[in-house]
């Protein structure tokens, strides 16, 4: 490793003349190799993907370890990699608060929903919410909550990809978005969940390898983490190692914490992965694998961020000059440490990350429409296999076009922060209904619809009126809602709405089914 690292460092010296934003052929070739490999997988998966169960759930044939890697792949998005390293580079310790918050959702997912979710559902989390309630209203509400979450999440990924491409390949933002859209659509349309899963697995391995290599190179250059911190303090002051503005206000801190922790339990593209494994036991094991991999990633990613702040010539000012959100810290650090080849590798990995995550999100968004609304509501569950797969593919194309179009107006926002907002919607709209439907006997159809709609409208409304959107996007001078992250209010309101409305509109049939449902929830009897 040492001589390899030195070789990379010497390459960095030669790369002096390279300017960011020029077309980088090494980066392009790495990128094309990765895309080629994933398309070969898609071709292989396409031959195995004919039924709707294969399209949405990879035929339930994915092993626990594979699913763990794919979950980690879905979760370690551009937000985690580019966003957190950038936030640590620019703001220091506050980036670590995001990293811890993003991990603690996994144990909560395990304790509260993973196994019941696997046992009760078929393709989407709405299957669970609607299990014993009236299908039409609950499916429509769940699809609204699911699609909103996935859209916000996708916007963050698209912002990441646009910046990255601008930096790496010298291609205009719009073209970059279109390339992401086309390749991602190929994965989803032809390969379905099986291809998407394998793309995630490959990407998770590449990303973990890339970040490990960056960390090792930083530590070779600086010494121990202690030496790195000393250098950070020397350059930017002790403040970088102290919690800053992010969690100064306790309500703000708890609100962000709730969103990061419980938002995971309402992310449609993550929840969907639990249907790819054969049973609840495999679902449980896959959470443990994912938690281990993601935990490792979040422990080392701050080193990359601090490394970027002290090792990149020009430091924070240089990072900020490239992208106001700080999202390019990790790729620029790679250029500094390993020259254009390493920059090419890291950029290709980051790009593959975005492609894979957007593919997973698109599949989740499309299935919310095609499975929950088209098959269950419009066709009253009488659609043929062929019609189901066709609807899923049409929805995929529509969602893909939306994803590309929405990537444009949100430029310049930190992607970690944007994803924080998506989590807030997930925690407010999807999680309360999902959880109450599993554990609370008296939860009724009206209660579910009220909970989802109150959570979705309140979180989106409060985000729109908060500083980020009201001031940052619309350009008003001050925000109407003081909280940056609305979760503490919107999630509580969603629970209250669900409870109050359920008590006011008791549903005897749903309560009777609750007992029958238990056998499936806890023993897996009758699970699909």
């Amino acid at each position, binding site marked *: 490793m040492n001589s390899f690292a030195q070789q990379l460092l010497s390459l960095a010296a030669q790369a002096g003349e390279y300017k960011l934003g020029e077309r980088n052929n090494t980066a392009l070739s790495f990128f094309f190799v990765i895309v080629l490999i994933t398309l070969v997988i898609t071709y292989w998966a396409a031959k195995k993907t004919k039924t709707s169960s294969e399209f949405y759930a990879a035929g339930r044939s994915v092993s626990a370890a594979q699913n763990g890697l794919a979950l980690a792949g879905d979760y370690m998005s551009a937000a985690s990699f580019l966003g957190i390293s950038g936030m640590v580079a620019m703001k220091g310790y506050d980036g670590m608060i995001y990293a811890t918050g993003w991990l*603690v959702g996994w144990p909560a997912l395990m*304790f509260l929903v993973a196994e019941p979710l696997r046992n009760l559902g078929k393709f989407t989390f709405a299957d669970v919410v609607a299990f014993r309630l009236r299908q039409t209203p609950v499916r429509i509400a769940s699809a609204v909550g699911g699609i909103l979450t996935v859209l916000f999440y996708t916007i963050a990924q698209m912002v990441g990809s646009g910046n990255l491409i601008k930096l790496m390949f010298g291609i205009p933002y719009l073209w970059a978005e279109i390339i992401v859209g086309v390749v991602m659509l190929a994965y989803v349309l032809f390969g379905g969940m099986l291809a998407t899963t394998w793309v995630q697995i490959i990407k998770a391995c590449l990303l973990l390898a890339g970040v490990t290599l960056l960390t090792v190179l930083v530590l070779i250059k600086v010494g121990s983490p202690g030496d790195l911190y000393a250098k950070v303090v020397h350059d930017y002051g002790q403040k970088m190692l102290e919690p800053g503005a992010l969690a100064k206000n306790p309500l703000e801190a708890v609100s962000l*914490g709730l969103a990061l922790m419980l938002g995971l339990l309402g992310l449609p593209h993550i929840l969907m992965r639990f249907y790819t494994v054969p049973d609840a036991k495999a679902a449980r094991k896959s959470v443990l694998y994912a938690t281990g991999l993601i935990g490792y990633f979040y422990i080392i990613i701050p080193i990359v961020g601090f490394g970027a702040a002290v090792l990149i010539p020009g430091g924070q000012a240089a990072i900020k000059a490239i992208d106001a959100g700080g999202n390019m810290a990790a790729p620029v650090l790679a250029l500094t440490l390993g020259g254009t080849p390493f920059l090419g590798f890291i950029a290709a990995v980051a790009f593959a990350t975005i492609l894979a995550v957007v593919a997973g999100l698109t599949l989740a968004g499309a299935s919310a429409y095609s499975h929950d609304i088209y098959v269950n509501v419009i066709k009253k569950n009488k659609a043929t296999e062929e019609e189901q797969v066709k609807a899923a593919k049409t929805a995929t194309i529509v969602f893909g076009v939306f994803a590309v179009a929405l990537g444009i107006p949100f430029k310049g926002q930190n992607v970690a922060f944007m994803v924080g907002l998506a989590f807030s919607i997930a925690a407010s709209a999807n999680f309360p209904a999902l959880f109450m439907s599993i554990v609370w006997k008296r939860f009724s159809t009206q209660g579910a619809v009220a909970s989802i709609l109150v959570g979705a409208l309140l979180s989106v409304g409060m985000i729109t009126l908060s500083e980020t959107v009201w001031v940052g996007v619309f350009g008003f001078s001050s925000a109407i809602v003081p909280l940056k992250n609305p979760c503490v209010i919107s999630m509580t309101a969603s629970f209250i709405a669900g409870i109050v409305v359920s008590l006011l509109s008791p549903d005897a049939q749903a309560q009777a089914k609750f007992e029958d449902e238990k056998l499936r929830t*806890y*023993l897996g009897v*009758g699970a699909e």
Partner: protein
Amino acid sequence: MADTARNVTRQEPKLHKSVTEIIESPDFKRLVSLRWTVSMVLLALLFVTYYGYILLIPYAPDFMKSKIGEVTTMAIPLGIGVIVIAFVLTAVYVVWANSSYDPEVERLKGQLRK
């Protein structure tokens, strides 16, 4: 798929009575309540760990800023500690479920087939 609960009954009509018996058996009730007890205890530990950490930031800033090395602040090992504890709690649940929950599930499922 419109109504999965009914599907179960339709596929296994003869078992319906014993399904009710199992659901009402003390063993099954104990299993369900144990499952939630374990989950809730672990969740409580997770909440204490994570929100304890989050609230230390605004309420005990001096503690978080206190130096444990030359420049390293208390906040750094605490942040890493939260991640490690979260993983350990997940592992505890998996070990419990594999060793206690699953055998009991298999036993109850075996009774159903009779």
